[in-house]
């Protein structure tokens, strides 16, 4: 086998805990009977693994990012310029719809703080992780025998 061959661009081991757990937390064969799971603490570490959901904060951050795009004249890449002007026409009469209606007030504060221009998108990739929360966060009892 050539598995020991290393190339400069390939990491031999997963580095982040989420990537480690991705391989063994809810993978691998499961044995019943006398054999049990001795897990504790790990789930706390994985709680953060994928709490990443789109929120008002997300949308405002995106809008702000668009707002910050410079005005160098170049090809209109996608539909967004038209989309923005469409929105400006609607301007003040525009209402948030559906699920967003209740959060608009709180969002105003967020929006103004975002306009202050903090660069929180820079840290986004670091928060990404690959474990699925519904699985990783439920296995938190010490010795449950979950495969019946």
């Amino acid at each position: 086998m050539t598995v020991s061959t290393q190339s400069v661009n390939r990491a031999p081991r997963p580095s982040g805990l989420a990537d480690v757990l991705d391989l063994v937390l809810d993978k691998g064969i499961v044995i019943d009977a006398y054999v049990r799971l001795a897990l504790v603490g790990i789930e706390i570490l994985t709680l953060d693994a994928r709490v990443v959901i789109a929120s008002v904060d997300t949308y405002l951050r995106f809008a702000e990012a668009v707002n910050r795009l410079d005005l160098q004249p170049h090809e209109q890449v996608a539909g967004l310029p038209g989309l923005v002007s469409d929105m400006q026409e609607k301007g003040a009469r525009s209402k948030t719809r559906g699920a967003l209606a209740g959060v608009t007030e709180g969002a105003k504060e967020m929006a103004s703080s975002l306009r202050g221009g903090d660069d929180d998108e820079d840290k986004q990739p670091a928060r990404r992780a690959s474990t699925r929360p519904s699985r990783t966060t439920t296995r938190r009892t010490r010795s449950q025998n979950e495969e019946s």
Partner: protein
Amino acid sequence: MRYVYGVVRAEHPPAQLKGVGRPPVDVRLVPSGPLAAVVSDVDEDFLVEENDARSHVHVLIDLLGGGPVIPVRLGTVAPDDEAVCAEVLDAARDDLLGCIEALDGKVELHVDVDDNEAEAIAAVAGAGPLRPGEALDVASALELGQRVAVLLVEHRQRLAEEIVAKLRPIAVRDAPRSVIEGPEDPVLRWAFLIDADDLVTFDEAVIGIRAAYPSLVIRYVGPLPAAHFVDWRGRPERGDEVDTFQGNGSWGW
């Protein structure tokens, strides 16, 4: 107690690395018939910590050089060697042998792709008529952000499909490792099962992808034990998993 890392063939060379627990102790093989369990001794009250999860994975990776390895779920312990033989090796011998055969000569590789959010937004949005710093009212900003989110998700999904399409022909099977559907999700989290002999070819393909997408951050990890491609009759139902982007292989577990 015995901590169980995985199952290998009885003649598999032993692991060189130390195992779980504090202090870490030697890892050894407990053979029974054609198979052996990879175990180490732990205290009666042993509980897995972060370090142990890493050790578990590192031991499996270490073993991979000597032949196929079936990973056992993190935190699996048995009272003694006899229990390991009776409950693991003998009880499921045929299934384990089938798994071992299926994984022989194959390894798992992970390809993770992230983008720079600001660059990605610029790519999907182009230059807008807004002047920098000009304020939208909140409702309009939310609506704009939602539309950007849709474009961003589509953009990332397109990239993901392009990248998987370049790698899939080299792989035996492939599978998503994470549900990717929202605007806060990354571009790609994918597992590939390949013939170990194709590793160099896969490396070159990844190098090519890096060159083709210089703005993307591509993490490439392996060879790993084939955790996402173990076919096991006892596997739990995955009906509750929703994938927006299916691999050609079935989910491992």
